[in-house]
């Protein structure tokens, strides 16, 4: 188990409980693939995290949205 995985575990242990809405079953599993994607994926994770911070403080420049919404 890499320290990187443990960081994700710690963050998620204190994260909120599910919001029951229209659940898209793929989303969480897609995000997990960044955590499982090895060293190369660390940069991707930081970028994703950065988007989330910007979104949280209202500075979000929407990432490229494609036709397909998954």
């Amino acid at each position: 188990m890499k320290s990187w995985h443990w960081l994700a575990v710690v963050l998620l242990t204190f994260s909120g409980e599910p919001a029951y809405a229209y659940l898209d079953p793929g989303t969480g599993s897609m995000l997990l693939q960044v955590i499982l994607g090895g060293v190369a994926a660390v940069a991707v994770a930081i970028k994703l995290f950065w988007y989330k911070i910007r979104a949280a403080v209202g500075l979000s420049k929407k990432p490229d949205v494609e036709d397909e919404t998954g």
Partner: protein
Amino acid sequence: MKPAEVNSADSFSVEAGSFRDRDGRIYRSGDRIIRGVSQLALDEFQKLQSTRFYTNFLDKGQLVESRILPSDQVPLSEDLQQQWAGFLEHSLVPVISYPYEWTFGMLRDAALLQLDLIEAAIKEGMTLKDATPYNVQFVSGRPVFIDIPSFETLPAGAPWAGYRQFCEMFLFPLMLQAYKGIHFQPFMRAGIDGVGIQTATRLFGFRDRFRSGVLTHVWLQAKLDSRYGSTSQNVRSELKSAGFNKEMILANIRKMRKLLSKLSWQGDGSEWGSYEEFHNYSEDDHLLKESFIEECVAASEANLVWDIGCNTGQFSKIAAKNARQVVAMDLDHFAVERLNREIKAEGVDNILTLVQNVADPSPNWGWRNSERTDLNTRARPDLVLCLALIHHVVISANIPLEEFIGWLADASDQLVMEYVSRSDDKVEALLRNKEDKYSDYSRQNLERTLERHYGIVRQLSLESGNRFLYWCRKTDSSI
């Protein structure tokens, strides 16, 4: 496994399990398997044919053989021909089986094939759009991938689309068996989508989080699933903009393969015990029984034989010498697992091993109760071997003898039955702590019932005086 030669046929049926993919549909015309495909699926197939990995896996017999059918050779109605852009023909799988009938080792072999295929595909710019064990079948003792339209071009920056499904239908069931000793088949039969992430996270306790793969694939995935399942953001495009690429999928797949190869299951003590003391009769009787079965199977001219309650599979192997295909079944998962390991090691290629309880057999279920079918619909046998099983069915499972013989007669036109008499110590053991309400369990009643459905062609009493063998065949008047 060559596709059948073309001949004109005008009757065909739609395979009930193939409706989910909007880009294709399977039709069966006699022994031919025809798939109607959309233009998109046809283009992807042509691209697939040009890859190196497609040829490699085909050569190894791990992909079903497929070809594009010229339009004048499609044995389907005009209406259907108009519906699809093109048609593929696949070679026929002798017996279709389902993951809830497989053993641990079979499910793992299918999982490893799935990983090998996606890894090879990704390296050549393609991918598998799903990851379901129903896309894998066992032919000649080996897993073969049959759902050719699952291969598609890998979109840039896309994650592994089948990752979650792979976990729910391969990884979690295998981990349940390996880590907890919980048989996975009932879960796979209870839900068409396997063991869901939220179910898995409840099945694995706190201590299990320290076992390989549980913390990440089960617990973390369940957490992320709850946390981000309702996100309004387009995670797919965020991943792409953040630079997600195929190297990350490959890293995940390599780790997954390592995890799977570490998972093992060696049964539990009780099952080993029953194996060691399999038969309680003399060596002479054993030889007599073997030659009776060998002669009957040969004389029956059966193509497909079921051996129900196969235990060690020694009679399945005898049958396999004289029939084209044997399906060896037992409710004891570990007995079937052992047999599967043996036939793989020995290179026996015409026995399909399945975990199956005749008192609670695979049902018709799924969408409209026809997506997955019972075994008789998939592989009607020409002969059933039912050796030293009837006392378990009648006495342990409480199924009346007449009912059981009626079911056997519905299943097949021929039967080889071994009756174990009440004075045999195996039967005595079953009755020891039970009130004996089984007046139907007698040789006289058995013979009378057999004769109602079949003619008895040949019979043999073993020298112990406790075991009787019958070869029965439906006569013109009994059919």
